[in-house]
């Protein structure tokens, strides 16, 4: 059983462009990792390295300390699912499952067919005749049923309707319970998926901005709401991520942790306090960097 996936000081250059720089990430089996970042941040490049689609320009990438690239014993332990154009694919999902089973012995054929049924997609229909959502469901089914120790879903829900996405999220949690494996979910729809994540890896401009457990990350900030003047008074001098107003009510999102005194102050001022959402934190944290750059 593969226990850890480690990227150590990994960099990637494509022609003269530096795509990734000094990426150090550690992932452990049994966890779901959310890989988030803005467009062009380097998420898919990191996933391509993990799937051995590319060779790192420098640094190491290993499963349980053994180098992964071109290692015949390890490469089939990684499953990389991403949006594929199936407009020229005449095979059916069932045929694809059979082919996957030939190369990946852990692939659970019955479960894959059960998943297709759950998605409401016909496993015997040629892929080119399927809708985008059904094609995405095929990819999702392959990934979930592969039982690979490392399973990567890169924007795999693109094209799925809301019920299908919801079904997929439930199945990710069920698959994690069924067997200890590493799931890496890369997505733009952070607000829908955040509850799946055990840890969040935020990528920004080709670097790892942070890797933290979700609960720890969400404690990095808080939202305080109440009458305009009182909120302004409380957040004066704090690291404000955003301010929203609705009539006389003001809501400030603040980066930082609350001290005991500040909690007492909030009680005294009758202000409301709540946690920030991952999506808000992600937007603000990556915006902040852009402002610095500008």
């Amino acid at each position, binding site marked *: 059983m593969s226990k850890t996936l480690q990227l150590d000081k990994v960099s990637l250059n*494509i022609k003269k462009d530096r795509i990734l720089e000094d990426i150090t990430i550690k992932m452990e089996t049994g966890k779901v990792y959310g890989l988030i970042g803005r467009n062009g941040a380097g998420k*898919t490049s990191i996933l*391509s390295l993990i*799937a*051995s*689609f*590319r*060779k790192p320009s420098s640094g190491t990438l290993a499963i349980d300390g053994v180098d992964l690239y*071109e*290692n*015949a014993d390890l*490469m*089939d*332990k*990684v499953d*990389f699912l*991403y949006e*594929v*154009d199936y407009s020229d694919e005449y095979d059916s999902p069932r045929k694809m499952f059979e*082919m*996957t089973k*030939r*190369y*990946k012995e852990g692939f659970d054929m019955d479960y894959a067919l059960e998943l297709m049924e759950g998605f409401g997609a016909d496993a015997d229909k040629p892929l080119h005749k399927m809708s985008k959502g059904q094609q995405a469901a095929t990819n999702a089914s392959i990934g979930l049923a592969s039982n690979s120790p490392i399973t990567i879903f890169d924007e795999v829900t693109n094209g799925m309707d809301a019920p299908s996405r919801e079904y997929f999220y439930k199945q990710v949690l069920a698959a994690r319970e069924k067997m200890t494996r590493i799931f890496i979910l890369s997505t733009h729809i952070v607000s829908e998926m955040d509850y799946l994540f055990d840890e969040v890896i935020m990528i920004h401009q080709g670097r790892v901005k942070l890797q933290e457990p979700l609960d720890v990350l969400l404690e990095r900030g808080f939202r305080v709401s109440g009458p305009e003047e009182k909120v302004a008074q409380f957040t004066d001098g704090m690291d404000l991520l955003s301010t929203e107003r609705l009539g006389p009510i003001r809501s400030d999102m603040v980066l930082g942790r609350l001290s005991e005194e500040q909690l007492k102050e909030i009680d005294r001022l009758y202000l409301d306090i709540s946690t920030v959402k991952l999506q808000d934190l992600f937007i603000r944290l990556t915006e902040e960097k852009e402002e610095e750059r500008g």
Partner: protein
Amino acid sequence: MSRKLRLATMDYTKEFIRWSLWYIPIFALVYIVLNVFLREPELNEMSFFSMALSANRIYMLVLGILAVYTFLEWSVNLGLTRKIFFHAMTTAGILTTLFITAATAAVSFLLGFMPWFGTGIPEVSGGVETLVYVGGYLLSTLLYFLGGFLISAGFYRGFVPGMTMVLLNIVIMMGTDIIWPRESGTIGLEALSFDTSTGVAMMVLITIVCLALIYAILRYMIRDIAVKIK
């Protein structure tokens, strides 16, 4: 041979043979139509096999060109290393070359029973010469497949490597075409001919050296090739 290498070789070969089962009947149909409607003695004497030997090379060149674009992403995604992909693909190329040569020979044998079609290879007089002639074509067909595979790997890496591989292929293919005296009675190079065993050995040796050269360049090109996500 490892399990994965065996599986990949089987799957690539199966797919190539499936395509070949379209190519061979279509080409046979073209041959039949030409022979029925055209009254050219040179054409009418030529057997299907004789005509197919040359066409098979172009067909295998096309298969080679499709190799990387059709199978690389699929293979790496299933956990195959580039090394396995390379060895499985070259083996599939050899097996497909043998298959289409045997299949076209079989079709030609059947057509030979009908009065409208030729039965021989006009360029050679028969016996050992025919064996050498067909063997030369087999090597050349394999060379075309590897050449196509090389072009495919080149363009997959980028435009400049692709064009470089096209030029390299032109040189190697022209070179091997010159040394093999395929036109009736003529000899490509004075020192090389079907008439002497030394000449034949030299021709085979030069072709094998060309094959080895392409094989080595291909291995280098495939070794760290990046799989592109569409």
